[in-house]
Protein backbone atom coordinates (compact mmCIF):
# COMPACT_ATOMS: atom_id res chain seq x y z
CA UNK A 1 0.00 0.00 0.00
CA UNK A 2 1.45 3.39 -0.98
CA UNK A 3 2.02 6.02 1.66
CA UNK A 4 -1.10 7.97 0.75
CA UNK A 5 -3.30 4.92 0.29
CA UNK A 6 -6.03 4.59 2.89
CA UNK A 7 -7.78 1.60 1.44
CA UNK A 8 -6.31 -1.37 -0.25
CA UNK A 9 -7.90 -4.59 -1.42
CA UNK A 10 -5.64 -7.37 -2.61
CA UNK A 11 -6.73 -10.36 -4.67
CA UNK A 12 -10.28 -10.13 -3.39
CA UNK A 13 -12.74 -12.87 -4.28
CA UNK A 14 -16.27 -13.50 -3.10
CA UNK A 15 -18.17 -16.66 -3.78
CA UNK A 16 -21.84 -17.38 -3.01
CA UNK A 17 -22.21 -21.13 -3.42
CA UNK A 18 -21.07 -21.94 -6.95
CA UNK A 19 -21.26 -18.35 -8.07
CA UNK A 20 -18.08 -16.29 -7.86
CA UNK A 21 -19.26 -12.69 -7.81
CA UNK A 22 -15.86 -11.02 -7.35
CA UNK A 23 -12.77 -12.61 -8.84
CA UNK A 24 -9.29 -11.71 -7.65
CA UNK A 25 -9.75 -7.96 -7.63
CA UNK A 26 -7.05 -5.66 -6.28
CA UNK A 27 -7.45 -1.94 -5.90
CA UNK A 28 -6.28 1.00 -3.84
CA UNK A 29 -7.90 4.26 -2.83
CA UNK A 30 -5.66 7.13 -1.75
CA UNK A 31 -6.47 9.75 0.85
CA UNK A 32 -8.84 12.39 -0.53
CA UNK A 33 -9.28 10.50 -3.79
CA UNK A 34 -12.64 10.13 -5.53
CA UNK A 35 -12.80 6.71 -7.16
CA UNK A 36 -15.71 5.42 -9.15
CA UNK A 37 -16.50 1.76 -9.69
CA UNK A 38 -18.57 1.41 -12.80
CA UNK A 39 -20.09 -1.54 -14.48
CA UNK A 40 -23.34 -3.05 -15.55
CA UNK A 41 -25.82 -4.51 -13.13
CA UNK A 42 -24.47 -7.83 -11.81
CA UNK A 43 -20.84 -6.99 -12.53
CA UNK A 44 -19.94 -7.36 -8.83
CA UNK A 45 -19.29 -3.71 -8.04
CA UNK A 46 -21.66 -3.51 -5.03
CA UNK A 47 -20.23 -6.74 -3.62
CA UNK A 48 -16.72 -5.35 -4.02
CA UNK A 49 -17.80 -2.20 -2.20
CA UNK A 50 -19.19 -4.33 0.64
CA UNK A 51 -15.92 -6.26 0.87
CA UNK A 52 -13.82 -3.10 0.93
CA UNK A 53 -16.04 -1.43 3.55
CA UNK A 54 -16.09 -4.41 5.87
CA UNK A 55 -19.82 -5.05 5.50
CA UNK A 56 -18.95 -8.42 4.02
CA UNK A 57 -15.95 -10.69 4.40
CA UNK A 58 -14.13 -11.88 1.29
CA UNK A 59 -13.82 -15.56 0.46
CA UNK A 60 -10.22 -14.84 -0.47
CA UNK A 61 -7.87 -11.88 -0.33
CA UNK A 62 -7.40 -9.13 2.19
CA UNK A 63 -8.54 -5.60 2.86
CA UNK A 64 -6.44 -3.01 4.61
CA UNK A 65 -8.28 0.11 5.73
CA UNK A 66 -6.31 2.91 7.37
CA UNK A 67 -3.41 0.55 7.93
CA UNK A 68 -5.47 -2.14 9.57
CA UNK A 69 -6.29 -5.49 8.05
CA UNK A 70 -10.01 -5.89 8.61
CA UNK A 71 -10.59 -9.43 7.33
CA UNK A 72 -9.95 -11.11 10.66
CA UNK A 73 -11.86 -8.59 12.77
CA UNK A 74 -14.97 -9.63 14.65
CA UNK A 75 -18.42 -8.20 13.82
CA UNK A 76 -18.21 -5.76 16.72
CA UNK A 77 -14.64 -4.70 15.92
CA UNK A 78 -15.73 -4.02 12.36
CA UNK A 79 -18.73 -2.04 13.58
CA UNK A 80 -16.52 0.13 15.77
CA UNK A 81 -14.03 0.55 12.97
CA UNK A 82 -16.80 1.64 10.61
CA UNK A 83 -18.15 4.04 13.21
CA UNK A 84 -14.78 5.75 13.59
CA UNK A 85 -13.55 5.75 9.99
CA UNK A 86 -16.24 5.07 7.42
CA UNK A 87 -19.37 6.71 6.09
CA UNK A 88 -22.04 5.00 3.98
CA UNK A 89 -24.46 6.30 1.41
CA UNK A 90 -26.94 3.79 0.07
CA UNK A 91 -29.08 3.82 -3.03
CA UNK A 92 -32.27 3.44 -1.00
CA UNK A 93 -31.18 6.08 1.56
CA UNK A 94 -31.67 3.65 4.46
CA UNK A 95 -32.98 6.21 6.90
CA UNK A 96 -34.79 5.13 10.08
CA UNK A 97 -38.45 5.99 9.41
CA UNK A 98 -39.29 6.82 13.03
CA UNK A 99 -36.44 9.28 13.53
CA UNK A 100 -36.33 12.89 12.39
CA UNK A 101 -33.76 14.17 9.91
CA UNK A 102 -31.33 15.31 12.59
CA UNK A 103 -31.76 12.11 14.60
CA UNK A 104 -30.99 10.05 11.50
CA UNK A 105 -27.86 12.09 10.96
CA UNK A 106 -26.87 11.58 14.59
CA UNK A 107 -27.54 7.82 14.48
CA UNK A 108 -23.84 6.79 14.50
CA UNK A 109 -23.35 9.04 17.55
CA UNK A 110 -26.13 7.42 19.63
CA UNK A 111 -23.91 4.78 21.23
CA UNK A 112 -21.26 7.40 22.06
CA UNK A 113 -21.10 9.13 25.40
CA UNK A 114 -22.23 12.61 24.46
CA UNK A 115 -25.21 14.73 25.31
CA UNK A 116 -28.28 14.92 23.13
CA UNK A 117 -27.52 18.64 22.61
CA UNK A 118 -24.04 17.86 21.29
CA UNK A 119 -25.44 15.28 18.91
CA UNK A 120 -28.12 17.67 17.75
CA UNK A 121 -25.63 20.49 17.25
CA UNK A 122 -23.34 18.29 15.16
CA UNK A 123 -26.23 16.92 13.10
CA UNK A 124 -27.73 20.37 12.57
CA UNK A 125 -24.40 21.76 11.34
CA UNK A 126 -24.20 19.05 8.72
CA UNK A 127 -27.84 19.44 7.69
CA UNK A 128 -27.23 23.18 7.32
CA UNK A 129 -24.37 22.36 4.97
CA UNK A 130 -26.78 20.15 3.03
CA UNK A 131 -29.20 23.10 2.93
CA UNK A 132 -31.67 21.19 5.06
CA UNK A 133 -31.52 23.40 8.13
CA UNK A 134 -35.26 24.01 7.86
CA UNK A 135 -36.08 20.29 7.74
CA UNK A 136 -34.25 18.97 10.77
CA UNK A 137 -37.37 17.86 12.65
CA UNK A 138 -39.03 16.22 9.67
CA UNK A 139 -39.44 12.48 9.42
CA UNK A 140 -38.05 10.76 6.29
CA UNK A 141 -41.62 10.24 5.07
CA UNK A 142 -41.98 14.01 4.84
CA UNK A 143 -38.81 14.46 2.78
CA UNK A 144 -38.28 14.23 -0.99
CA UNK A 145 -35.87 11.68 -2.45
CA UNK A 146 -33.15 14.27 -2.86
CA UNK A 147 -33.64 15.51 0.69
CA UNK A 148 -33.47 11.97 2.02
CA UNK A 149 -30.21 11.38 0.22
CA UNK A 150 -28.80 14.64 1.56
CA UNK A 151 -29.75 13.48 5.07
CA UNK A 152 -27.96 10.20 4.31
CA UNK A 153 -24.87 12.12 3.15
CA UNK A 154 -24.93 14.18 6.35
CA UNK A 155 -25.15 10.96 8.34
CA UNK A 156 -22.15 9.58 6.43
CA UNK A 157 -20.18 12.65 7.45
CA UNK A 158 -21.20 12.89 11.09
CA UNK A 159 -18.28 10.81 12.37
CA UNK A 160 -15.67 12.68 10.27
CA UNK A 161 -14.86 9.62 8.15
CA UNK A 162 -11.65 9.03 6.24
CA UNK A 163 -13.59 7.45 3.42
CA UNK A 164 -17.19 7.39 2.24
CA UNK A 165 -18.60 4.39 0.45
CA UNK A 166 -21.48 5.36 -1.81
CA UNK A 167 -23.56 2.68 -3.49
CA UNK A 168 -25.50 4.09 -6.43
CA UNK A 169 -26.28 7.28 -4.46
CA UNK A 170 -28.37 8.69 -7.30
CA UNK A 171 -30.00 5.43 -8.30
CA UNK A 172 -33.39 6.29 -6.86
CA UNK A 173 -33.39 9.95 -7.88
CA UNK A 174 -34.41 11.84 -10.98
CA UNK A 175 -31.59 13.23 -13.10
CA UNK A 176 -31.80 16.77 -11.76
CA UNK A 177 -31.72 15.67 -8.15
CA UNK A 178 -29.02 13.14 -8.96
CA UNK A 179 -26.84 15.92 -10.37
CA UNK A 180 -27.38 17.94 -7.22
CA UNK A 181 -26.29 15.01 -5.09
CA UNK A 182 -23.22 14.51 -7.23
CA UNK A 183 -22.47 18.20 -6.79
CA UNK A 184 -22.54 17.73 -3.04
CA UNK A 185 -20.25 14.69 -3.21
CA UNK A 186 -17.82 16.63 -5.40
CA UNK A 187 -17.84 19.50 -2.97
CA UNK A 188 -17.19 17.16 -0.09
CA UNK A 189 -14.33 15.60 -1.89
CA UNK A 190 -12.77 18.94 -2.74
CA UNK A 191 -13.57 20.92 0.40
CA UNK A 192 -13.50 18.27 3.08
CA UNK A 193 -10.77 16.16 1.46
CA UNK A 194 -12.78 13.02 2.11
CA UNK A 195 -11.95 9.98 0.04
CA UNK A 196 -14.97 8.60 -1.81
CA UNK A 197 -15.44 5.21 -3.37
CA UNK A 198 -18.62 5.34 -5.38
CA UNK A 199 -20.41 2.58 -7.23
CA UNK A 200 -22.54 3.54 -10.21
CA UNK A 201 -23.67 2.13 -13.48
CA UNK A 202 -23.93 5.58 -15.05
CA UNK A 203 -20.73 6.60 -16.80
CA UNK A 204 -21.91 10.17 -16.93
CA UNK A 205 -21.86 10.46 -13.16
CA UNK A 206 -18.41 8.90 -12.96
CA UNK A 207 -16.90 11.85 -14.77
CA UNK A 208 -16.58 13.68 -11.49
CA UNK A 209 -14.20 11.05 -10.12
CA UNK A 210 -10.40 11.24 -10.10
CA UNK A 211 -10.22 7.66 -11.16
CA UNK A 212 -12.50 5.23 -12.86
CA UNK A 213 -12.45 1.49 -12.33
CA UNK A 214 -14.53 -0.61 -14.70
CA UNK A 215 -15.84 -3.97 -13.67
CA UNK A 216 -17.24 -6.81 -15.69
CA UNK A 217 -18.23 -10.28 -14.51
CA UNK A 218 -16.57 -9.77 -11.14
CA UNK A 219 -13.25 -8.60 -12.51
CA UNK A 220 -11.63 -5.23 -12.99
CA UNK A 221 -11.30 -4.65 -16.70
CA UNK A 222 -9.68 -1.21 -16.70
Amino acid at each position, binding site marked *: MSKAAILSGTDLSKRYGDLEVVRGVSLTVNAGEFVCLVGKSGSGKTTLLSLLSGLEKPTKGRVILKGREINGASE*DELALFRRDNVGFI*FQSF*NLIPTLSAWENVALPLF*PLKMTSEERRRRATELLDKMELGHRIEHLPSALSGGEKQRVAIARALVNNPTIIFADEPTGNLDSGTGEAIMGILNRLHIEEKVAILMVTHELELAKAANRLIRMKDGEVVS
Partner: protein
Amino acid sequence: MNLRYMMKELYYRKRRTVTSIFGLAIGIALLIVINSLSLAYRQASRVPLKEIGADITVQRSGDVPREMAGAVFPCSAVTIRKEEVKKIQKLPGVKGMGTALLLWVFDPNRAWIVLGIEGDNSIGPIILRSSVTEGRFLEDGKPEALVEQAYARQFGIRLNDTISVAGNKFPVVGFVDASRAAKIAVANVYLPLKEAEDLAASSKELQSVSSYASGDVNLLFIKADEEKITGLVAEMRGILGSKATVATPDSFLKLLGSLFALSDKFTLAASLIAIIIAVLIAFKTMAGNIAERASEIGILKAVGWTNRNVVSQLMSESVIQCFIAGILGLTIAVVASFGLSFMKVNIPIPWEMSPVPHFLPGGGDQIFKTLRLPVHVPWNLAFFAILLSIIVGAMTGGLLGRHIAKIKPLEALRYE
Protein backbone atom coordinates in the same frame (compact mmCIF):
# COMPACT_ATOMS: atom_id res chain seq x y z
CA MET B 1 -29.54 2.56 24.91
CA ASN B 2 -30.90 5.78 23.48
CA LEU B 3 -34.04 6.99 25.20
CA ARG B 4 -35.10 9.32 22.40
CA TYR B 5 -34.81 6.57 19.80
CA MET B 6 -36.67 4.16 22.07
CA MET B 7 -39.57 6.53 22.72
CA LYS B 8 -39.88 7.37 19.03
CA GLU B 9 -39.94 3.71 18.05
CA LEU B 10 -42.72 3.04 20.55
CA TYR B 11 -44.62 6.18 19.55
CA TYR B 12 -44.46 5.80 15.78
CA ARG B 13 -45.17 2.07 15.82
CA LYS B 14 -48.33 2.72 17.80
CA ARG B 15 -50.32 -0.25 16.59
CA ARG B 16 -47.68 -2.78 17.45
CA THR B 17 -46.82 -1.06 20.70
CA VAL B 18 -50.46 -0.89 21.77
CA THR B 19 -51.09 -4.54 20.77
CA SER B 20 -48.03 -5.64 22.66
CA ILE B 21 -48.85 -3.58 25.75
CA PHE B 22 -52.51 -4.62 25.86
CA GLY B 23 -51.76 -8.28 25.24
CA LEU B 24 -49.27 -8.43 28.06
CA ALA B 25 -51.41 -6.21 30.29
CA ILE B 26 -54.33 -8.64 30.00
CA GLY B 27 -52.05 -11.53 30.93
CA ILE B 28 -50.69 -9.62 33.92
CA ALA B 29 -54.19 -8.52 34.95
CA LEU B 30 -55.39 -12.14 34.77
CA LEU B 31 -52.47 -13.25 36.88
CA ILE B 32 -53.19 -10.62 39.52
CA VAL B 33 -56.97 -11.17 39.56
CA ILE B 34 -56.64 -14.96 39.82
CA ASN B 35 -54.26 -14.66 42.74
CA SER B 36 -56.26 -11.87 44.40
CA LEU B 37 -59.43 -13.96 44.15
CA SER B 38 -57.66 -16.98 45.55
CA LEU B 39 -56.32 -14.86 48.38
CA ALA B 40 -59.77 -13.37 48.99
CA TYR B 41 -61.33 -16.82 49.29
CA ARG B 42 -58.54 -17.76 51.67
CA GLN B 43 -59.20 -14.68 53.77
CA ALA B 44 -62.95 -15.32 53.66
CA SER B 45 -62.39 -18.87 54.85
CA ARG B 46 -60.66 -17.51 57.95
CA VAL B 47 -63.58 -15.26 58.91
CA PRO B 48 -65.83 -17.81 60.71
CA LEU B 49 -62.94 -18.84 62.96
CA LYS B 50 -61.58 -15.32 63.28
CA GLU B 51 -64.97 -14.20 64.55
CA ILE B 52 -64.55 -16.50 67.49
CA GLY B 53 -60.97 -15.35 67.97
CA ALA B 54 -59.39 -18.62 66.87
CA ASP B 55 -57.51 -20.29 64.04
CA ILE B 56 -58.62 -23.80 64.86
CA THR B 57 -61.63 -25.25 66.69
CA VAL B 58 -61.56 -28.73 68.14
CA GLN B 59 -64.43 -30.98 69.12
CA ARG B 60 -64.99 -34.67 69.51
CA SER B 61 -68.10 -36.41 68.22
CA GLY B 62 -69.82 -39.05 70.27
CA ASP B 63 -73.08 -40.86 70.82
CA VAL B 64 -76.54 -39.35 70.54
CA PRO B 65 -78.19 -38.86 73.96
CA ARG B 66 -80.64 -41.69 74.70
CA GLU B 67 -83.16 -39.33 76.18
CA MET B 68 -83.53 -35.64 75.61
CA ALA B 69 -83.93 -34.69 79.27
CA GLY B 70 -81.89 -32.35 81.42
CA ALA B 71 -78.41 -31.33 80.29
CA VAL B 72 -76.87 -33.39 77.51
CA PHE B 73 -74.01 -33.06 75.09
CA PRO B 74 -74.81 -32.65 71.39
CA CYS B 75 -73.48 -35.73 69.59
CA SER B 76 -71.02 -33.50 67.74
CA ALA B 77 -69.36 -32.24 70.93
CA VAL B 78 -68.71 -34.69 73.72
CA THR B 79 -66.14 -34.63 76.50
CA ILE B 80 -62.57 -33.50 75.91
CA ARG B 81 -60.71 -34.35 79.10
CA LYS B 82 -58.63 -31.77 80.90
CA GLU B 83 -55.50 -33.93 80.43
CA GLU B 84 -56.12 -33.91 76.71
CA VAL B 85 -56.62 -30.14 76.82
CA LYS B 86 -53.27 -29.74 78.58
CA LYS B 87 -51.50 -31.92 76.00
CA ILE B 88 -52.94 -29.89 73.16
CA GLN B 89 -52.03 -26.66 74.91
CA LYS B 90 -48.39 -27.76 75.03
CA LEU B 91 -48.14 -28.60 71.34
CA PRO B 92 -45.55 -26.49 69.53
CA GLY B 93 -47.32 -23.93 67.37
CA VAL B 94 -50.21 -23.41 69.78
CA LYS B 95 -50.10 -19.73 70.73
CA GLY B 96 -53.16 -19.70 72.97
CA MET B 97 -56.32 -21.57 73.78
CA GLY B 98 -59.87 -20.90 74.88
CA THR B 99 -62.30 -23.53 76.11
CA ALA B 100 -66.07 -23.73 76.32
CA LEU B 101 -68.80 -26.17 77.19
CA LEU B 102 -71.78 -26.48 74.89
CA LEU B 103 -74.88 -28.14 76.33
CA TRP B 104 -78.39 -28.85 75.23
CA VAL B 105 -80.65 -28.47 78.20
CA PHE B 106 -84.14 -29.94 77.98
CA ASP B 107 -86.35 -28.58 80.72
CA PRO B 108 -89.99 -29.62 80.96
CA ASN B 109 -91.23 -26.46 79.23
CA ARG B 110 -88.27 -25.28 77.27
CA ALA B 111 -85.11 -26.35 75.47
CA TRP B 112 -81.96 -24.29 75.84
CA ILE B 113 -78.70 -24.31 73.99
CA VAL B 114 -76.25 -23.32 76.70
CA LEU B 115 -72.67 -22.24 76.22
CA GLY B 116 -70.37 -22.05 79.22
CA ILE B 117 -67.65 -19.52 78.54
CA GLU B 118 -64.41 -18.47 80.19
CA GLY B 119 -64.40 -14.97 81.58
CA ASP B 120 -60.66 -14.38 81.64
CA ASN B 121 -59.51 -15.59 78.24
CA SER B 122 -59.28 -13.44 75.15
CA ILE B 123 -59.67 -16.46 72.84
CA GLY B 124 -63.04 -18.01 72.12
CA PRO B 125 -66.58 -16.92 72.90
CA ILE B 126 -65.35 -14.10 75.14
CA ILE B 127 -65.48 -12.18 71.87
CA LEU B 128 -69.26 -11.98 72.58
CA ARG B 129 -68.46 -9.10 74.89
CA SER B 130 -68.72 -6.79 71.88
CA SER B 131 -72.17 -8.18 70.95
CA VAL B 132 -73.90 -7.22 74.18
CA THR B 133 -76.83 -5.01 73.18
CA GLU B 134 -78.38 -4.45 76.56
CA GLY B 135 -77.20 -4.93 80.14
CA ARG B 136 -73.67 -6.12 80.71
CA PHE B 137 -71.34 -9.04 80.09
CA LEU B 138 -70.86 -11.88 82.58
CA GLU B 139 -68.73 -11.15 85.62
CA ASP B 140 -66.25 -13.63 87.03
CA GLY B 141 -67.52 -15.99 89.72
CA LYS B 142 -71.12 -14.85 89.53
CA PRO B 143 -73.87 -17.35 88.61
CA GLU B 144 -75.58 -15.21 85.98
CA ALA B 145 -76.70 -15.50 82.37
CA LEU B 146 -76.61 -13.68 79.07
CA VAL B 147 -79.49 -14.44 76.76
CA GLU B 148 -79.55 -14.22 72.99
CA GLN B 149 -81.68 -11.22 72.03
CA ALA B 150 -84.04 -12.91 69.54
CA TYR B 151 -84.54 -15.86 71.89
CA ALA B 152 -85.33 -13.50 74.78
CA ARG B 153 -87.80 -11.66 72.61
CA GLN B 154 -89.46 -14.91 71.53
CA PHE B 155 -89.90 -16.14 75.08
CA GLY B 156 -90.51 -12.79 76.76
CA ILE B 157 -87.33 -12.87 78.84
CA ARG B 158 -86.39 -9.45 80.19
CA LEU B 159 -83.29 -7.97 81.71
CA ASN B 160 -82.92 -8.90 85.41
CA ASP B 161 -85.43 -11.75 85.05
CA THR B 162 -84.31 -15.01 86.58
CA ILE B 163 -84.24 -18.01 84.29
CA SER B 164 -84.18 -21.61 85.39
CA VAL B 165 -81.83 -23.87 83.43
CA ALA B 166 -81.87 -27.55 84.48
CA GLY B 167 -83.21 -26.46 87.84
CA ASN B 168 -80.54 -23.81 88.40
CA LYS B 169 -81.52 -20.17 88.72
CA PHE B 170 -79.60 -17.48 86.85
CA PRO B 171 -80.35 -13.77 86.76
CA VAL B 172 -80.29 -12.35 83.21
CA VAL B 173 -77.64 -9.61 83.22
CA GLY B 174 -77.57 -8.87 79.52
CA PHE B 175 -78.64 -9.66 75.99
CA VAL B 176 -76.39 -10.48 73.06
CA ASP B 177 -77.14 -10.02 69.36
CA ALA B 178 -76.43 -13.35 67.64
CA SER B 179 -76.43 -11.67 64.22
CA ARG B 180 -73.35 -9.73 65.34
CA ALA B 181 -71.83 -12.70 67.11
CA ALA B 182 -69.81 -15.56 65.69
CA LYS B 183 -71.71 -18.27 63.86
CA ILE B 184 -69.76 -21.01 65.58
CA ALA B 185 -71.02 -22.39 68.91
CA VAL B 186 -74.16 -20.27 68.79
CA ALA B 187 -76.31 -20.61 71.92
CA ASN B 188 -79.45 -19.20 73.49
CA VAL B 189 -77.96 -18.79 76.92
CA TYR B 190 -74.40 -17.98 77.90
CA LEU B 191 -73.21 -18.91 81.38
CA PRO B 192 -69.87 -18.71 83.17
CA LEU B 193 -67.89 -21.87 82.35
CA LYS B 194 -67.97 -23.00 85.97
CA GLU B 195 -71.80 -22.94 86.01
CA ALA B 196 -71.98 -24.95 82.77
CA GLU B 197 -69.49 -27.45 84.21
CA ASP B 198 -71.71 -27.91 87.23
CA LEU B 199 -74.72 -28.51 84.97
CA ALA B 200 -72.79 -31.13 83.01
CA ALA B 201 -71.28 -32.82 86.05
CA SER B 202 -74.67 -33.15 87.74
CA SER B 203 -76.49 -34.54 84.68
CA LYS B 204 -76.96 -38.32 84.83
CA GLU B 205 -78.14 -38.47 81.24
CA LEU B 206 -75.00 -36.68 80.08
CA GLN B 207 -72.72 -38.85 82.20
CA SER B 208 -74.32 -42.02 80.86
CA VAL B 209 -73.36 -41.08 77.26
CA SER B 210 -70.01 -39.38 77.78
CA SER B 211 -68.45 -39.46 81.21
CA TYR B 212 -67.61 -36.00 82.41
CA ALA B 213 -65.59 -34.56 85.27
CA SER B 214 -65.39 -30.96 86.35
CA GLY B 215 -62.68 -29.20 84.33
CA ASP B 216 -63.43 -31.16 81.17
CA VAL B 217 -64.82 -29.22 78.23
CA ASN B 218 -66.21 -30.03 74.78
CA LEU B 219 -65.05 -27.09 72.65
CA LEU B 220 -61.50 -25.84 72.14
CA PHE B 221 -60.61 -22.58 70.39
CA ILE B 222 -56.97 -22.44 69.44
CA LYS B 223 -54.73 -19.63 68.21
CA ALA B 224 -51.85 -21.11 66.27
CA ASP B 225 -48.90 -20.29 64.05
CA GLU B 226 -50.37 -20.15 60.58
CA GLU B 227 -47.66 -22.27 59.02
CA LYS B 228 -48.01 -24.97 61.68
CA ILE B 229 -51.77 -25.46 61.43
CA THR B 230 -51.60 -28.53 59.18
CA GLY B 231 -49.12 -30.28 61.48
CA LEU B 232 -51.15 -29.35 64.56
CA VAL B 233 -54.30 -30.87 63.09
CA ALA B 234 -52.55 -34.23 62.76
CA GLU B 235 -51.18 -34.05 66.29
CA MET B 236 -54.56 -33.12 67.76
CA ARG B 237 -56.17 -36.05 65.99
CA GLY B 238 -53.44 -38.19 67.49
CA ILE B 239 -54.37 -36.97 70.99
CA LEU B 240 -58.17 -37.04 70.62
CA GLY B 241 -58.52 -40.08 68.39
CA SER B 242 -60.44 -40.71 65.21
CA LYS B 243 -63.59 -38.95 66.41
CA ALA B 244 -61.90 -35.58 66.69
CA THR B 245 -63.43 -32.82 64.57
CA VAL B 246 -60.83 -30.19 63.83
CA ALA B 247 -61.91 -27.13 61.87
CA THR B 248 -59.31 -24.94 60.19
CA PRO B 249 -59.43 -22.20 57.54
CA ASP B 250 -58.61 -24.92 55.01
CA SER B 251 -61.69 -26.92 55.96
CA PHE B 252 -63.85 -23.82 55.39
CA LEU B 253 -62.06 -23.20 52.12
CA LYS B 254 -63.12 -26.65 50.98
CA LEU B 255 -66.69 -25.92 52.03
CA LEU B 256 -66.67 -22.82 49.84
CA GLY B 257 -66.22 -25.10 46.87
CA SER B 258 -65.09 -22.36 44.48
CA LEU B 259 -62.45 -23.29 41.94
CA PHE B 260 -60.21 -20.71 43.54
CA ALA B 261 -60.90 -22.15 46.94
CA LEU B 262 -60.44 -25.74 45.88
CA SER B 263 -56.72 -25.83 45.69
CA ASP B 264 -53.51 -23.93 45.48
CA LYS B 265 -52.72 -26.10 42.50
CA PHE B 266 -55.56 -24.57 40.51
CA THR B 267 -54.38 -21.05 41.31
CA LEU B 268 -50.83 -22.00 40.45
CA ALA B 269 -51.90 -23.63 37.19
CA ALA B 270 -54.12 -20.68 36.24
CA SER B 271 -51.35 -18.24 37.14
CA LEU B 272 -48.86 -20.17 35.06
CA ILE B 273 -51.25 -20.18 32.11
CA ALA B 274 -51.72 -16.41 32.49
CA ILE B 275 -47.95 -15.92 32.63
CA ILE B 276 -47.38 -18.17 29.60
CA ILE B 277 -50.07 -16.31 27.64
CA ALA B 278 -48.48 -13.01 28.65
CA VAL B 279 -45.01 -14.20 27.65
CA LEU B 280 -46.23 -15.62 24.34
CA ILE B 281 -48.07 -12.42 23.46
CA ALA B 282 -45.02 -10.35 24.37
CA PHE B 283 -42.74 -12.71 22.47
CA LYS B 284 -44.91 -12.84 19.37
CA THR B 285 -45.43 -9.09 19.07
CA MET B 286 -41.79 -8.34 19.86
CA ALA B 287 -40.65 -10.98 17.36
CA GLY B 288 -42.89 -9.41 14.71
CA ASN B 289 -41.60 -5.99 15.60
CA ILE B 290 -37.98 -7.02 15.44
CA ALA B 291 -38.38 -8.96 12.19
CA GLU B 292 -40.05 -5.89 10.70
CA ARG B 293 -37.03 -3.85 11.72
CA ALA B 294 -34.36 -6.18 10.33
CA SER B 295 -33.25 -3.68 7.71
CA GLU B 296 -33.21 -0.93 10.34
CA ILE B 297 -30.92 -3.09 12.46
CA GLY B 298 -28.74 -3.55 9.39
CA ILE B 299 -28.48 0.24 9.10
CA LEU B 300 -27.55 0.55 12.77
CA LYS B 301 -24.81 -2.04 12.38
CA ALA B 302 -23.59 -0.50 9.13
CA VAL B 303 -23.17 2.89 10.78
CA GLY B 304 -21.22 1.41 13.66
CA TRP B 305 -23.56 0.02 16.28
CA THR B 306 -22.14 -3.06 17.96
CA ASN B 307 -24.22 -6.14 18.76
CA ARG B 308 -24.33 -4.98 22.36
CA ASN B 309 -25.61 -1.55 21.33
CA VAL B 310 -28.36 -3.18 19.25
CA VAL B 311 -29.33 -5.68 21.96
CA SER B 312 -29.47 -3.06 24.71
CA GLN B 313 -31.60 -0.79 22.49
CA LEU B 314 -34.08 -3.56 21.66
CA MET B 315 -34.07 -4.83 25.22
CA SER B 316 -34.80 -1.42 26.66
CA GLU B 317 -37.69 -0.94 24.22
CA SER B 318 -39.05 -4.31 25.24
CA VAL B 319 -38.58 -3.64 28.96
CA ILE B 320 -40.31 -0.26 28.78
CA GLN B 321 -43.25 -1.74 26.83
CA CYS B 322 -43.59 -4.59 29.30
CA PHE B 323 -43.25 -2.21 32.24
CA ILE B 324 -46.08 -0.06 30.85
CA ALA B 325 -48.05 -3.28 30.27
CA GLY B 326 -47.38 -4.26 33.87
CA ILE B 327 -48.68 -0.94 35.17
CA LEU B 328 -51.72 -1.14 32.88
CA GLY B 329 -52.34 -4.76 33.89
CA LEU B 330 -52.10 -3.78 37.54
CA THR B 331 -54.56 -0.93 37.00
CA ILE B 332 -57.01 -3.25 35.23
CA ALA B 333 -56.61 -5.78 38.04
CA VAL B 334 -57.20 -3.17 40.74
CA VAL B 335 -60.39 -2.01 39.00
CA ALA B 336 -61.55 -5.61 38.45
CA SER B 337 -60.76 -6.48 42.08
CA PHE B 338 -62.77 -3.50 43.27
CA GLY B 339 -65.71 -4.75 41.21
CA LEU B 340 -65.29 -8.29 42.50
CA SER B 341 -65.14 -7.08 46.08
CA PHE B 342 -68.89 -6.40 45.88
CA MET B 343 -69.45 -10.11 45.34
CA LYS B 344 -70.91 -11.89 48.36
CA VAL B 345 -69.96 -15.35 49.53
CA ASN B 346 -71.93 -17.62 51.82
CA ILE B 347 -69.70 -19.75 53.96
CA PRO B 348 -71.63 -22.75 55.26
CA ILE B 349 -71.11 -23.46 58.95
CA PRO B 350 -71.30 -27.22 59.51
CA TRP B 351 -74.11 -28.24 61.85
CA GLU B 352 -71.54 -29.96 64.07
CA MET B 353 -69.92 -26.63 64.87
CA SER B 354 -73.09 -24.96 65.96
CA PRO B 355 -75.45 -27.81 66.80
CA VAL B 356 -79.14 -27.15 67.28
CA PRO B 357 -81.52 -30.05 68.02
CA HIS B 358 -83.20 -31.00 64.76
CA PHE B 359 -86.65 -31.10 66.29
CA LEU B 360 -86.43 -27.45 67.38
CA PRO B 361 -87.57 -24.68 65.00
CA GLY B 362 -84.71 -23.93 62.61
CA GLY B 363 -82.79 -26.94 63.90
CA GLY B 364 -82.21 -28.44 60.49
CA ASP B 365 -81.44 -25.15 58.76
CA GLN B 366 -78.02 -24.63 57.30
CA ILE B 367 -76.25 -21.70 58.91
CA PHE B 368 -74.22 -19.46 56.65
CA LYS B 369 -71.74 -16.75 57.30
CA THR B 370 -72.37 -14.20 54.55
CA LEU B 371 -69.71 -11.68 53.76
CA ARG B 372 -68.36 -9.54 50.96
CA LEU B 373 -65.46 -11.27 49.28
CA PRO B 374 -62.43 -9.35 50.53
CA VAL B 375 -60.79 -9.00 47.11
CA HIS B 376 -57.87 -6.63 47.00
CA VAL B 377 -54.50 -6.53 45.31
CA PRO B 378 -51.79 -6.97 47.92
CA TRP B 379 -48.60 -4.94 47.56
CA ASN B 380 -46.38 -7.98 47.22
CA LEU B 381 -48.52 -9.36 44.38
CA ALA B 382 -48.51 -5.96 42.64
CA PHE B 383 -44.73 -5.75 43.05
CA PHE B 384 -44.31 -9.32 41.76
CA ALA B 385 -46.48 -8.59 38.70
CA ILE B 386 -44.49 -5.47 37.81
CA LEU B 387 -41.21 -7.30 38.38
CA LEU B 388 -42.46 -10.19 36.26
CA SER B 389 -43.43 -7.89 33.42
CA ILE B 390 -39.97 -6.30 33.51
CA ILE B 391 -38.33 -9.74 33.48
CA VAL B 392 -40.54 -10.82 30.57
CA GLY B 393 -39.53 -7.65 28.73
CA ALA B 394 -35.84 -8.16 29.44
CA MET B 395 -36.00 -11.81 28.42
CA THR B 396 -37.96 -11.35 25.20
CA GLY B 397 -36.03 -8.23 24.21
CA GLY B 398 -32.73 -9.81 25.16
CA LEU B 399 -33.34 -13.14 23.42
CA LEU B 400 -34.82 -11.67 20.26
CA GLY B 401 -32.29 -8.86 20.23
CA ARG B 402 -29.36 -11.28 20.51
CA HIS B 403 -30.85 -13.34 17.70
CA ILE B 404 -31.39 -10.45 15.31
CA ALA B 405 -28.13 -8.75 16.26
CA LYS B 406 -26.25 -11.76 14.88
CA ILE B 407 -27.45 -10.91 11.38
CA LYS B 408 -24.70 -9.37 9.30
CA PRO B 409 -25.46 -5.79 8.30
CA LEU B 410 -25.52 -6.58 4.63
CA GLU B 411 -27.97 -9.47 5.14
CA ALA B 412 -30.21 -7.21 7.19
CA LEU B 413 -30.05 -4.45 4.59
CA ARG B 414 -31.18 -6.94 1.97
CA TYR B 415 -34.54 -7.18 3.83
CA GLU B 416 -35.21 -3.81 2.25
